């Protein structure tokens, strides 16, 4: 910053610095005026409740992360609150409503897929597009229009199913 001249007029850099200062002050007053209005009219929501929720979440995460606390054990081997110990694969047996055969609950879905003859159709349909399913629901819910588990994704990265038989070689029987 250069020194002021001998007369009382401020230097160029001083003037520009003053202008900048005025602009900055003006912006600060804009913001404080808005905040003042919001606070006075009670529009600033329930900050205490929000902060309390944040605090509780933070506390919860700390407690859960603490290994000395009772962590969640693998619930599959644990007794549920009713005193039952359901097996890993659901063992209930009922009749398939499509073909009438007795099926085990835990294997019902793969059975039904074969039994309804859906497999080939489902795979073929999937390669065509996943946008079909997107469009189908976009009219109902314009803000949720994607399909993260589209089968095309699955085929593209060649992922194997989590469990169960693999039908990709097409060597299954249609009922």
């Amino acid at each position, binding site marked *: 910053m250069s020194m002021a001249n001998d007369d009382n007029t401020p230097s160029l850099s001083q003037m520009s610095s003053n202008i900048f200062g*005025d602009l900055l*002050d003006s912006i600060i*007053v804009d913001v404080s*005026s808005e905040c003042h*209005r919001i606070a*006075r*009219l*009670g*529009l600033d*929501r*329930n900050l205490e*409740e*929000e902060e309390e*929720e*944040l605090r*509780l*979440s*933070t*506390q*919860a*995460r*700390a407690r*859960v*992360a603490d290994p000395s606390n009772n962590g969640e054990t693998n*619930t*599959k081997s*644990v007794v549920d*609150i009713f005193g039952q110990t*359901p097996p890993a694969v*659901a063992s209930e047996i*009922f009749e398939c*409503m499509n073909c*009438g055969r007795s099926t085990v*609950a835990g*294997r*019902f*879905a*793969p059975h*039904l*897929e074969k039994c309804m*003859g*859906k497999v080939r159709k*489902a795979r073929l*349909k999937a390669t065509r597009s996943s946008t079909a*399913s997107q469009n189908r*629901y976009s009219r*109902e*819910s*314009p803000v*949720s229009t994607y399909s*993260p*588990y589209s089968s095309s*994704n*699955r085929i593209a*990265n060649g*992922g194997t*199913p989590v469990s*169960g038989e693999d039908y990709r070689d097409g060597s299954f029987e*249609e*009922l």
Partner: protein
Amino acid sequence: MNHHRNNQILLQTCPHLSDFKSKHGTKPFRVLQKCLRVKPLGRAEIRRDPNELRRCISCTTTESSSSTRLRFLACVACAAVSCNSHAAGHAESRESGHEIAVDVDRAELYCCVCRDQVYDREFDGSVVLAQAESSTLGVPNTKNPIESPRKRRRVEYRPWSSDPREQVLMTRGSSPLQSGDGYPWGLRGLNNLGNTCFMNSVLQALLHTPPIRNYFLSDRHNRYVCELKKANNNNTHNNNVVLVNGCNNNQSVRLCLACDMDAMFSAVYSGDRTPYSPAKLLYSWWQHAANLASYEQQDAHEFFISMLDGIHEKVDKDRGKPQSQGNGDCCIAHKVFSGILRSDVTCTACGYTSTTYDPCVDISLDLDPNYGSSTKTSSTKSHHTFNGETADRPQSTLMGCLERFTRPERLGSAEKFFCQQCQIRQESLKQMSLKKLPLVLCFHIKRFEHSNTRKMPMSRKVDRYLQFPFSLDMSSYISSSILRGRFGNRIFAFGGDEKDISPSELPSNFELFALVTHSGKLEAGHYVTYLRLDNQWYKCDDAWITQVNENIVRAAQAYMMFYVQKTLYYKVSENLTTS
């Protein structure tokens, strides 16, 4: 000093302002209104001559260049302009009547004696009208097209409690419904039928969605007398079924997802605690959503949308005429989940705003895209700070997502919008808000990212933690609040605010009752639902129901969150009558 009851503004003005108004009425404000100048999308200011220079009558020349002068205040009585340092002096130097001034750059009232900004309804009203006129939009609360024709008259909520005589009658004639094992009704595991945890997780949430639960348990859809199934039985061809070779020829097609839900409700609320197999529902759903029917892991959110669609379609067919989903009269699914989104697109050149309304059954939110690139988890770091913010990485929160969802977004120059007023394509701002909140709000967090490169579409899951509250206040995100913010938070009835809403009836307070979480990778993950019943949290992991501490829930990775309007959320009463 000022009270606020959620959306209602109760204003206490300073005594000088009330004095001034009682003496002069609103005439001075109307005079000011003529000098209001508004730029589209800009601030309202008071200016008589477009080129006038602001000058304080009391400042000397040396003071003019100092920066203690922050505001120019024009006296409402005599229009003399003073800076904030000299404003009080002006009020004192004249006899009474010069206490109120207006900040000319911001159109805000100022009391020179209290030395503080003050607020007035009539003045604000004038400013809003001036702002509206500048964009020739007309008055902001124009009759909105989604005006519910039968606007229900609100009745003041009065809690009821029995008098001694009634209490005697009740205890003598009834016994409280207590489940045999002391656990809440409707708590029952769901068997995994083979990669169906995506379905089980959503079903658990629906089983405990208060209005849906009440609907089915009140026998509003009786599967034994369902008209739709009877109609289907008469059809030889049902185009919803994709079957090969008539596998299904030993029974006629009975396809009604609501009937299957009814059966499930009956089973789950029966008191039997052995895990239930929703096999029939799976079968019906696969017929409804043929393209999703395959034995592989699906997305829970997609299933949710599909189920609502299925319930809607099945019920709607019966009526024969298409119903608007916005008012939720078509089916229970929409009555419960359907809200209305408002989208405003504003021309940045002239301020003209075009508004559209769309129904929605849920809200899908993006996680903050600009999150830090650090790969460290922050779970251990965050407990050092009070509100979960670390120095470099603020926590992702649901309210943060909602703020981003409702913030004005500048549409790029590639997406210029045709402005009706300018008659050319202009750059514009888009802003979303919630016109009507549903009874039950479902939030869906977009944790699955897709990138579509030509060679191989890649997908990955975003595991980042998202903070969410158990009690949620949506009042900042509704259309009236967003509109008000756009007009400088002036006191004005935006969007048809009802001023006489008593606090207990406000529909913008919600309580969390179900949380669907996803763990694991995109292809090989697992869904679990946490339910809040009688203020106790239960973990529903397919067939395994366990009780968990609320900390587990707060720390969980949220995928779908179900909130119900507080007025519909029953709290456990402490004093259950004992026989």
